[in-house]
């Protein structure tokens, strides 16, 4: 699906001022700018990241400043995206909301990726009974639709941000385990492992030194796609009133409250929805682009 647009500058093209010439040269020679999805995705993700990191600087108002006389105002010069039912500036809440979404997404995917990859690598490397048992256990997690699993975990741990991160993290364990296991199986089939054992390397050294590097590209692609899914899940949980609790500016809960005012103040629901869409689309494009870059074989088909 990556349109192989020639976004790559030729070396005669203008180097953006301020960018060191070596970096520019590297970008030109690399394939990265060739792939529209990677570049556009990276740009979109960069916007979200900037919002999250620089929220204190770029947001015009505090996300908690209520002004009951100015509630449900349509977009204007004072409030670019309008104001919500408490008179809070929607644009500022969206910008701060990026922090919540990214925080939950990164931490939960981090949990899922570390635990899942570890399990997958071990299962793929040792094979046999261990592999069978681990995969059966993961099948149990696999047979829960994501939202439901998250709901069950949240019911157990209570509706707050931390349990949302754990819940979403648990959802990703089987996914990463499968990816890591598949990559591990490829390496094991080849002779690297036998050779390494013959030299006397320990299992741990082999897994970390031979198997893991092979598994990194698909794990990396899966990570970006998982982050996009985690953003949706976090929004879904806050939408249901679990997850980030009001008055925290979570996009999902903003969308939920905005729903009630849609008939006469649709911007309260549209803005957070667009924010979620932007972030998710950005990470999906990034993941797609990464996958195309890292797996030349797929490039021809996709």
């Amino acid at each position: 699906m990556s349109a192989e647009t020639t976004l790559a500058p030729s070396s005669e093209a203008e180097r953006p001022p301020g960018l060191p010439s070596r970096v520019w040269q590297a970008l030109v020679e690399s394939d990265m700018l060739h792939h529209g999805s990677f570049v556009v995705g990276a740009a979109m993700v960069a916007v979200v990241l900037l919002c999250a990191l620089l929220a204190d600087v770029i947001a015009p108002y505090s996300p908690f400043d209520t002004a009951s006389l100015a509630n449900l105002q349509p977009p204007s010069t004072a409030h670019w995206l309008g104001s919500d039912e408490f008179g809070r500036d929607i644009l500022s809440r969206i910008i701060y909301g990026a922090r919540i979404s990214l925080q939950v997404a990164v931490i939960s995917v981090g949990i899922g990726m570390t635990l899942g990859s570890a399990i997958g690598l071990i299962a793929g490397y040792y094979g046999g009974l261990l592999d069978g048992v681990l995969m059966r256990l993961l099948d149990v997690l696999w047979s829960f639709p994501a939202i439901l699993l998250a709901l069950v975990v949240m019911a157990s741990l209570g509706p707050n941000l931390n349990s949302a991160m754990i819940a979403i993290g648990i959802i990703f364990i089987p996914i990463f385990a499968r990816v890591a296991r598949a990559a591990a199986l490829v390496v094991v089939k080849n002779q690297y492992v036998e050779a390494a054992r013959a030299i006397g390397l320990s299992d741990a050294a082999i897994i970390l030194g031979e198997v893991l590097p092979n598994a990194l590209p698909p794990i990396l692609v899966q990570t970006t796609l998982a982050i996009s899914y985690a953003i949706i899940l976090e929004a879904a949980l806050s939408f249901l009133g679990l997850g980030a609790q009001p008055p925290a500016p979570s996009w999902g809960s903003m969308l939920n409250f905005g729903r009630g005012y849609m008939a006469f103040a649709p911007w309260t629901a549209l803005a957070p929805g667009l924010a979620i869409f932007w972030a998710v689309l950005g990470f999906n494009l990034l993941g797609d682009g990464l996958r195309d870059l890292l797996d030349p074989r797929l490039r021809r088909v996709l």
Partner: protein
Amino acid sequence: MARFIAKRLLALIPVLWGVSLLVFLAMNYIPGDIASIFLGIQSNQELLETFRHRFGLDRPLYVRYLEWLVGMLHGDFGRSFANGVDIREELLKRFPVTLELTVLAILIANLVGIPAGIIAALRHRTRVDTAVSVVALGGLSTPAFWLGTLLVLIFALQLELLPSGGYTPLTEDPLDNLRLMLLPALSLGLVSGSVIMRMTRSSMLEVLRQDYMTTARAKGTPGWALVSRHALKNALIPVVTVMGLEISANFGGAVLIEQIFLIPGVGSLALQGITQRDYPVVQGTVMLVAAFVVLVNLATDIAYAYLDPRRRV
């Protein structure tokens, strides 16, 4: 083939058993006492004791688990803490609702996704392909609950064409039922359709590259026959897998759509149980959903093995 099915059916049992353990432990091994969580910490001791005794919470964990498990195998899912309703009755009422929503959604998804995917593959590297792919990526990046909200905004509030929520059983008034289910099914279906479209497209592209397609072309097979007779059947095989995954995802994920459109399905029951801390309800709904997902996976595996004899392991 029969052996394949039998083996797969047997494999279901440990998985479902694992699910029952997981959900029971999640609900009952929590920090805090069930009685005080349900009734509120302010309740007096007597009330808590009565509650505990009434629902057998004063017995050991494994006894309660076994009792629940054996009960389920006999069709008894227990009663709700909140209103004493028989959970099995409630599930039987709500299951067809969510099932209908899921079926409608996957129908829409296939109607939209498969033709789009085929066209995109046949028009590879043209503007049509790029356009379809972009739309599909946008589609799957859209959260279904936002799409639902948007659809309500446009079709219910602005254009006033369709209702914004509610449910009429299919048996009562099919036309009204479909009218009410259209927007919810679209919310789920268009997102699933995007996923199916991408899978169809990449699978079709893969098939079109194969040597047997070149042979067929060389033999002089006309264009449409090339696609329908030779390419399509093989290309659709991986799509079946994705379809199964989307059906499971929609059945479980319908909870959000059911919230938005006020549809009394399994999802909203689960959510109710969770917010009210009504643990028997949560246990029952989760088991139902898990059983459904596991059976759908089985059906997908069987369909795949039927279509592709190489997979009958």
